[in-house]
């Protein structure tokens, strides 16, 4: 089956990100395809490239990037939710005159239309809320 995940919770604030990552790994291990994870609301903080959690704790940003590298999972970040929280890729940082950027590949800033598309394309869309 084709799955999509909608993640609304911030990393390390509540359990949503950990639950979503665990669910993603489990469905891939069962042979399903995970088309994309869509990061929305405070979930966009999962895309913060400068995240540096203690080494003995799960590294969520790396965890998502690994899913992309090993299974081709698209990591789509709502651009409207991201920009207002200071999460900008190089292009948006330049456009807004910011000195640095906080989002990088494999995360991609996209519109919420991609979420609608994901919902239509997938057999199952599972939401993890805060």
């Amino acid at each position: 089956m084709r799955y999509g995940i909608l993640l609304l919770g911030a990393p390390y604030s509540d359990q949503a990100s950990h639950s979503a990552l665990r669910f993603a790994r489990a469905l891939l291990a069962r042979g399903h395809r995970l088309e994309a994870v869509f990061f929305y609301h405070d979930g966009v903080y999962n895309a913060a490239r400068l995240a540096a959690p203690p080494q003995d704790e799960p590294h969520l940003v790396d965890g998502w990037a690994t899913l992309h590298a090993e299974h081709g999972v698209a990591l789509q970040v709502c651009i409207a939710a991201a920009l207002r929280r200071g999460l900008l890729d190089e292009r948006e940082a330049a456009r807004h005159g910011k000195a640095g950027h906080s989002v990088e590949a494999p995360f991609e800033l996209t519109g919420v239309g991609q979420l609608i598309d994901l919902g239509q394309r997938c057999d199952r869309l599972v939401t993890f809320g805060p």
Partner: protein
Amino acid sequence: MKLHILNRSPASSQVPAQALSAMGPEDRLLLIEDGVQGALPALIHHYAAIPGRLYALREDLVARGLIGRCDGTVQVVDVDGFVTLTEEAEQTLSWY
């Protein structure tokens, strides 16, 4: 049949009652995260309306030291079982 996924405890939230009121006669309810507290005997009466259709996630029970303390009517599933429940349901709805 829809799978409802709930991460709130009936001891501290009205969300479980809202989830129950939205459930159809065949729908299933999976308790995750702090929602697994609802599987304890002291709180199980909140779910009396859905006998045989209540599930709780093993990993979240273990993380809270609650494994083995669930009411006997609750079906405990691990994360693979969570995936299976989503396979069997036409749709999933998350309550938080």
